[in-house]
């Protein structure tokens, strides 16, 4: 490949990137070797970068462990064994169940935390990812791994934690012992003289005042430091009202906070014990108590009615009935979105239809038929695995000799899982689940009435970014693949749990475009994100999707036209080569 062509492609990608994608890196291949028999090009590395960010980055970075291992050097490690690595990436569970030793060793090393299946990735795509990894990721400074490593870690006082300074520890202990002795001596003296040497009561009373001043001082100081970060500018219509309610609640609670805390510490100080004084006997005062029952009740009633009204307005009104409906789909560990195509209708979807090429399980008759064949093949291979079990067990036993320590224990545990029938049971259960799935799919295909295979989903677009239009209401319809997630959009003051088996939704109207917010924040790099806010597994902290609010309908349409429909003939998508890296844009026909 000529250098000139490389330069051209680089420029082409730069221009394309600037036009269509918010963030784009121009990659310069420095690869000196072939990967899986292919040459690394800038374009392939660019593709790999995107694929990595979409599929791998929630669990892996290049340097160091995240949820899974760091991937730097993975190319060196498996240089001789591309087929195995490919099989592992595509379906690690199949490999593990087949009794592959290396696969089982990795599975055990990572505490049986199961890696997702990536049968949606083609061989070519996997190779692209490996090229990007081998090329050093996004550059030497960042250590690679897309969204990770963007932060400067705070300075660590090394001496404090890493090398415990025994002299300091001994000194602290000495000070403690000296204090103890001092208190002991004082106590002895006061026992002899009958007088208290230190008036602890007064000391603590004054400390109460000191604390009060320090407490209020720090609260105000922290507010002065962080006030700009709190409740960032609301980018949705209802968010503005919500912020006003927040301010009212602050107005109601802050005075109470300052007054009652002041009274608490001030009374403690003022009414400290003094010789010769007797406390004022006051057991109750009904009027007073009524006052401080009724006033909070009134204030709370006001807050309740405000909150009640606004809650109904946000979540129970029909205002957003005509809003554009898109689907937001959550899985361990990432997000997808689905837009309706020209028919403006989202096709029906079902979890039984999910597979590599159809990650959201959108209903399509051809795909479902193909899936049934796929599942039947899997059952055959699972049955084969069952018939191989005795051999596997024998092999494990024969390799036991010579192992010591932890390795031997792990090996013995593995043999035990064969002996106890756990492995067999697991395989049988999987077969049963596949059979059930086939039955359900066949039932759905045969259903005459209310069939989900309406064809409405064929032109849906599955994407990995949400694009919205400024000032146009949008309804996000949520669906989860595996466990509960929560879609949190802090700038839009929107949040809703994403629950498997339970459809949820949230309607809002964005009022500030991404560009507007960049201006407001003075940060040209700023982007809105949807993040996960319900504990969903080990990579929960690393699960986000970019949200772009377009300035106008035209910009939105432009973006939309670049997105390929889910189920169309292959010839049509070939034109949209630049976006073919998006998950799920591959056609069913290609399978």
């Amino acid at each position, binding site marked *: 490949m000529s250098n000139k062509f490389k330069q051209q492609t680089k420029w082409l990608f730069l221009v394309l990137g600037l036009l269509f994608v918010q963030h784009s890196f121009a990659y310069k291949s420095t690869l000196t070797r072939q990967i899986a028999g292919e040459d690394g090009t800038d374009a392939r590395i660019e593709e790999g970068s995107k694929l990595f960010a979409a599929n791998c980055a929630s669990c892996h970075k290049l340097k160091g462990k995240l949820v899974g291992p760091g991937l730097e050097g993975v190319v060196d490690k498996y240089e001789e064994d591309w087929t195995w690595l490919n099989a592992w990436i595509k379906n690690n569970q199949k490999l593990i169940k087949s009794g592959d030793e290396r696969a089982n060793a990795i599975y055990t090393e990572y505490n049986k935390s199961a890696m997702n299946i990536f049968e949606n990735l083609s061989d070519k795509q996997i190779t692209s990812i490996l090229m990007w990894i081998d090329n050093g990721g996004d550059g030497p400074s960042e250590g690679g791994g897309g969204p990770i490593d963007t932060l400067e870690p*705070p300075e660590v006082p090394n001496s404090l*934690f890493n090398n415990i300074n025994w002299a300091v520890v001994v000194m602290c202990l000495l000070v403690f012992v000296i204090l103890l002795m001092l208190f002991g001596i004082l106590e002895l003296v006061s026992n002899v003289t009958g007088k208290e040497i230190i008036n602890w009561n007064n000391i603590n*009373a004054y400390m109460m005042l000191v604390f009060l001043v320090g407490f209020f001082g720090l609260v105000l100081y922290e507010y002065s430091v962080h006030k700009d970060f709190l409740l960032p500018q609301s980018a949705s219509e209802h968010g503005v009202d919500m912020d006003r309610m927040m301010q009212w*609640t602050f107005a109601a609670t802050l005075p109470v906070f300052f007054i009652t805390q002041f009274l608490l510490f001030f009374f403690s100080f003022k*009414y400290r*014990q003094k010789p010769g004084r007797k406390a004022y006997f006051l057991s109750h005062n009904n009027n007073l108590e009524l006052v401080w029952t009724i006033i909070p009740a009134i204030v709370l009633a006001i807050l309740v009615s405000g*909150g009640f009204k606004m809650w109904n307005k946000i979540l129970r009104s029909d205002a957003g009935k005509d809003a554009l409906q898109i689907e937001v789909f959550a899985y361990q560990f990432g997000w997808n979105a689905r837009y309706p195509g020209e028919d403006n209708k989202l096709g029906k979807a079902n979890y*039984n239809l999910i597979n590599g090429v159809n990650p959201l399980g959108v209903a399509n008759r051809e795909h479902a038929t193909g899936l049934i064949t796929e599942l039947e093949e899997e059952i055959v291979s699972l049955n084969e695995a069952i018939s191989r079990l005795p051999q596997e067990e024998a092999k494990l036993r024969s390799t036991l000799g010579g192992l010591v320590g932890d390795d031997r224990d792990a090996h013995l545990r593995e043999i035990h899982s064969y002996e106890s029938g756990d492995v067999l049971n697991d395989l049988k259960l999987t077969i049963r689940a596949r059979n059930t799935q086939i039955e359900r799919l066949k039932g759905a295909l045969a259903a005459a009435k209310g069939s989900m295979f309406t064809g409405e989903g064929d032109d849906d677009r599955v994407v990995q970014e949400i694009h919205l239009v400024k000032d146009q209401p949008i309804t996000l319809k949520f669906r989860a693949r595996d466990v509960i997630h929560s879609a949190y959009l802090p700038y839009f003051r929107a949040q809703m749990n994403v629950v*498997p088996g339970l459809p949820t939704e949230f309607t809002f109207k964005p009022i500030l475009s991404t560009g507007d917010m960049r201006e407001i924040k003075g940060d040209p790099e700023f982007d809105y994100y949807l993040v996960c806010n319900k504990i969903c597994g080990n990579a929960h902290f690393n699960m986000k999707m970019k949200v772009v609010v377009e300035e106008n309908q035209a910009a939105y349409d432009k973006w939309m036209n670049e997105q390929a429909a889910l189920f169309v003939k292959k010839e049509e998508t070939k034109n949209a080569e630049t976006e073919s890296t998006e998950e799920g844009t591959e056609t069913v026909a290609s399978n």
Partner: protein
Amino acid sequence: MSTAVAHAHTDDHHHHEESFISKYIFSMDHKMISKQFLITGIIMGLIGMGMSIAFRLQLAYPDTSFPILEWLFGSKWAPDGKLDAGYYMALVTMHGTIMVFYVLTAGLSGTFANLLLPLQIGARDMASPFMNMLSYWFFFLSSVVLLSSLFVETGPASGGWTIYPPLSALPKAMPGSGMGMTLWLVAIILFIASSLLGGINYISTVLNMRTKGMSMTRLPLTVWALFLTAVLGLLSFPVLLGGGLLLMFDRGFGTSFYLSDIYLGSAGALEHTGGSPVLFQHLFWFLGHPEVYIIIMPALGITSEIIAVNSRKPIFGYTAMVISLLGIAFLSFIVWGHHMFITGMNPLLGAVFLVTTLIIAVPSAVKTFNYLATLWRGNIRFTNAMMFAIGLVSFFISGGLTGIFLGNATLDIQLHDTYFVVGHFHIVMGCAAIFGMLAGIYHWFPKMFGRLMNKPLGYIHFWLTFASAYLVFFPMHFIGLAGVPRRYYAFTLLPEYGQWADVNVLMTLAAILGGIAQLVFIYNFFSSIFIGKKSTENPWEANTLEWTTPVERIHGNWPGAIPTVYRWAYDYSNPAYDEDFKMQNVPDESHVVELFETNTGTAPSTKDKPETETVSFFTLIRNWFKPRTV
């Protein structure tokens, strides 16, 4: 009622020579059981706190290697001295579980209900001492099972202490949902058994075994609080038991109570169909919310007693205090949905729970103002216990007010599951309840061990703990208002999280300081058991009956007859008497007939206007609390 029977019964046993095992291990003496609960609770508390420091290190210094973590957790969970992401989740989960159930429920209620109920109502022991012993040993067993999950191959439960399915129901969803989760469920089921055995006992003891003259209106507020806590536990824990059992069925027997429409990345489409994950959340929070009050009410009861004793004043508005406890106890059963505003529950329900939730702020406010009124014009003795009680009130105010934000469903859309929530509940139920527990320990230590704790060390402990607790949890509100989610292993997801890096360091350093302060307490506690200054019978000059028992802490509590009660527990600085205080068992000729009058403070000073007795709501309530005849 059964007091006479119990009396005769315990008298029989009272002179037995006891072996080591029957005295210290399988003891049926409520005072020994309370010590067992306390010491187990303290140990669990140290473990829970240690875990929190470990994961705070990760949050403040995500890229630093701490050899100590590798030493503690092994190279499997902290390779190169950096916490594994899954183990971070496990530590968060275990920290929550240990603190909520093992320290603040069993450690707090178990200790003080066992110690104080018989002593303060004038009973020789609990209604069923054997059940009481079982209660402790179920708790002990449960602790062992929970801690053992730290050592299983796939690690302890790590789906958060709320263990929401499907994450907790599917062993393949995350490593912690395997064996660790099974052990968690077994531990909690044992814990519930312990809690129910204890609760039934506390309730029957308070209802049946009060001494002569101890009407419900004369109960110290500690007893009221512990009694209502037991009622809450008895009504709500079985619901969690049911929920947990159904979860076990879903995990092991292929049922689908909580599971439907699931495709797991590592296992494909599952067969489960028809269940609802939200059902579990309803069952969980039906316990979970009363649980918050199970934790805080004993602490409030302890505080009421300690503030009254050390201000040398009657607690202000005894009746209002009791009514607000009753109000809180009742309302706590109809507010659980505020944990679920945005879980996909019907928004109409959200609106209902919004209303009930904010109503519960009213009785809480009444309690706070009454504490302030009790301090007003008092003669305050800053004992160690009093310091912690004042600290509790401060936390209760700070944390209660942020509850008004979170209880408002509209604002919860933004604040749900952010650090604002973490700050809120750590202050209002974490710190406040721990302070109540510490106050109780300092106050009743002489009753447990016959010695006093070291006072200056107690002050050092208090100030370090108080300051560090605010330093850890107050900044969390700011972080939460900026929209930073909780339960994140590292703040790398969005660049804007980086602006909190220095605050995270501050919070971690404060947490370490707080940890060191607890070491001072541990030293003080265990050394005072052996070398503390000998206590007198009534070191704080308090009125309640436990201070009439001898320092030697005999089986059966009182060497002679059980004392008779002639007055309420709060006759401090009553101008009718020369003494500063009148104990409950001191007869008073002028009030023999009209027992109840002493409650309302019949002898006000000249400044105090005589009260006009209209038939008010309060009078009606008062009549309802008919005193017992002597």
